[in-house]
């Protein structure tokens, strides 16, 4: 591939590495064609990076011109994400209470249920949450296409944080002396069992969806396979 003498070899290597990473967001066939074109044209690393970024931006804009990602955002992220966030919050609180009571006093936290029934309830809630999150992730993956990185991030933040935000705004939780960085970390990577459940189901559903979509795409898009171009050309000639 081409080099960029003005910026020095380190910048060139970094830029080419970025081109390599960013081009992974493109479809496999398009990625190969684009990287081949860049290799052949001998463009500088800076130009190549600009070109790849331009293509990715155009592809993302193209995705949002369709209705499916918007439906994913409204239907899954807003309508399903907010109630899920409340249930997940409740699950987290119940689990923490039980854990703390057992750790500190060696007893079951006083609820109206027996310890066995409480455990069964929490287990059922965990399974129900896992199934719901998996379903949401699968629908999100099906509707979003290559906008999945955005819709999934929005879903992640909505499910894990919207309940906290609502409680904070209503004054039920007081964030005293909380630093901005600490708040940001707590909002983006909350370390609790709910996050683990979410990540587990989310990654599982999206990878399931990706493999299913790839199979469907292979069947529905013969234009990107290796076929004889003269077949289609002759067909068009007959139509003239």
């Amino acid at each position, binding site marked *: 591939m081409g080099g960029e003498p003005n910026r020095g070899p380190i910048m060139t290597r970094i830029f080419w590495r970025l081109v390599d990473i960013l081009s992974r967001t493109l479809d496999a066939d398009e990625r190969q064609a684009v990287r081949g074109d860049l290799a052949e044209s001998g463009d500088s690393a800076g130009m190549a990076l600009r070109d790849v970024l331009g293509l990715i931006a155009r592809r993302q804009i193209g995705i949002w011109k369709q209705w499916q990602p918007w439906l994913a955002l409204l239907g899954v992220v807003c309508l399903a994400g907010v109630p899920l966030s409340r249930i997940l919050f409740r699950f987290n609180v119940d689990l923490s209470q039980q854990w703390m009571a057992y750790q500190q006093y060696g007893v079951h936290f006083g609820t109206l249920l027996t310890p066995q029934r409480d455990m069964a309830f929490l287990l059922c809630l965990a399974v129900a949450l896992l199934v719901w999150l998996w379903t949401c992730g699968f629908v999100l993956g099906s509707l979003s296409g290559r906008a999945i990185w955005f819709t999934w991030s929005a879903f992640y933040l909505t499910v894990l944080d919207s309940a906290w935000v609502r409680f904070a705004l209503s004054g039920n939780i007081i964030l005293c002396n909380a630093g901005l960085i600490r708040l940001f970390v707590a909002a983006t990577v909350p370390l609790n069992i709910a996050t683990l459940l979410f990540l587990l189901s989310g990654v599982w559903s999206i990878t399931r969806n990706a493999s299913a979509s790839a199979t469907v795409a292979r069947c529905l898009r013969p234009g990107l396979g290796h076929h004889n171009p003269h077949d*289609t050309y002759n067909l068009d000639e007959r139509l003239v």
Partner: protein
Amino acid sequence: MLGEFEYLILSAAARLHDDAYGAAIRHEIEEATGRHCSIGALYTTLDRLETKGLIRTWMGDPTPQRGGRPKRMVRVTATGIRAASDFYLVVRRVSRGVSWEANRIAVR
């Protein structure tokens, strides 16, 4: 009606014929216009032209010159040829009698 860039791509692909693929079309357009042709503009326009049925594209064989990566080959369909021809006629018709057309003939 075609857009200007769509017409440039169709013309370049038609001229290159069997050798029409991403990088070659890009090179042709840059030579003709003297301006940089971005890969993003090229590939999104190729998709649009294919959706309109004006071109067909397919993945060619990998070549060592491209680091073993395949080319996205392009062929102009009969509909594409007709659309480009119509566009050219419109441009010629609308340019009749305008100063730059007269100057061009005078320079020639």
